[in-house]
């Protein structure tokens, strides 16, 4: 197992569950009564048009956004019962990437490794290699292309081997070979027992990768089923038919 976090006693879980979770910002409803369960080994594809509430859902799962009503359960517990240590188990790659453009790739990874209490010397160099940045590690992120930043951000999010892996549009800016690499990575993570949730609007990439599909539109979950081929046709019917 690759969960080295397991030794530090931080709370572990093998499923994440949203129960009637709603979130609104003022009068704008971002999510309405979404119930969704993701288990270890799942790769849940979160599909929906822009502004459907995917990012809010990811935010709820990452504990950084609190639900207005309903609850988010990790295993059988609520996030507030688990406290700060729960965050040791969660990795998030968001659209904004969460890396400092002023720092070098190595500095970024070292900082976050230390923040997560990891041995930076041991984890940073392999992570740079995986991101394909082995020879650019000491360059400032500001000079990187979107694809390079995306790969770095991915490694940053996975540094601490989280149980719950949350990806918001992870394929933005990646070329085909990088997409394949990332897809393989996700499969391997799920195979190792991670819970993977991927929000994307790119059906072609999601097809064949995800094991379950959750479609949201205007803040509502309108489909939640096992993935099979012909994702595109069913997505169309779900979006159009609702």
């Amino acid at each position: 197992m690759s969960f080295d976090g397991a030794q530090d006693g931080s709370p572990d879980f093998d499923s994440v569950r949203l129960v009637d979770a709603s979130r609104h910002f003022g009068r704008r409803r971002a999510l309405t009564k979404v119930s969704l369960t993701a288990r270890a080994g799942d790769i849940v594809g979160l599909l929906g048009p822009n502004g459907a509430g995917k990012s809010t859902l990811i935010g709820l799962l990452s504990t950084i956004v609190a639900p207005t009503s309903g609850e988010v359960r990790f295993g059988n517990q609520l996030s507030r019962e688990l406290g700060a240590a729960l965050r040791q188990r969660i990795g998030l790659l968001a659209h904004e990437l969460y890396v400092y453009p002023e720092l070098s790739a190595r500095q970024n990874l070292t900082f976050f490794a230390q923040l997560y209490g990891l041995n930076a010397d041991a984890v940073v160099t392999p992570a740079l290699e995986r991101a394909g940045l082995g020879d650019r590690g000491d360059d400032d992120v500001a000079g990187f292309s979107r694809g390079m930043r995306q790969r770095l951000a991915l490694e940053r999010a996975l540094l601490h081997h989280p149980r719950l892996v949350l990806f918001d549009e992870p394929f933005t800016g990646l070329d085909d070979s990088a997409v394949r690499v990332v897809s393989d990575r996700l499969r391997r993570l799920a195979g190792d027992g991670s819970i993977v949730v991927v929000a994307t609007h790119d059906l072609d990439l999601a097809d064949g990768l995800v094991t379950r599909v959750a479609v949201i539109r205007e803040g509502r979950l309108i489909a939640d089923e096992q993935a099979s081929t012909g994702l595109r046709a069913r997505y169309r019917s779900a979006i159009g038919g609702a």
Partner: protein
Amino acid sequence: MKKSFVPLAVVTALLFVIAPILIARAPYESEMLLIQKIFYFHVPSWVAMYCGLLVCAVGSIWYLFKGNRVADRYAESAAELVLLFGLNGLVSGPLWARKAWGVWWQWDAKLTSALLLWLIFVAYLLVRKYGGPGSEKLAAAVGIFGAAVSPFVYVSVNIWRTIHPKTSVVPDIVKNPAKGFAAPLLVSMLAFVLLFVLLLMVRVYLAAHQDALDELYLAHED
């Protein structure tokens, strides 16, 4: 709460009827004469303002840590009343000062510190108005800090002023209750506090309606 509104209103009205009579009959303060009568509703304004400050702080703490919407309504309403009663104090103060000290603004310790606190609660309402979604939480922090800083504002302004020579004749009416100043003052203070409670109830009622409207908008989207 709603049931007590009408009796409260009646009592407050009575007090506001009695107070002017008492004030009119109160003896003239030897140095200030007629203008001293401002005192009877200048000081109660501050009392009401500090009541608002207290309610706002408690409501803010409650909202921030318990997420209680009702507490937030009270905090918001109380902040608005701080603005209202503070404004009254800030206007009546200079009017009094003009007559008693010969200037509109004296940088008097009490007036200045009240002005500063008043500004904090203006900021509170500005955050709520212009802060965008989620600004209630930010405002709650302002409310808590505003209340916490109030004794310091008073102490520091007070020392800042009193280090300098005193140029003004400050009446010490409260120290001489025997002269007949205390009764009208107490009555009008009570009247102001009750008025504060009444206005708070009305304003909270409005806030509850606004929340209900927000809920409806959300429900309507369903």
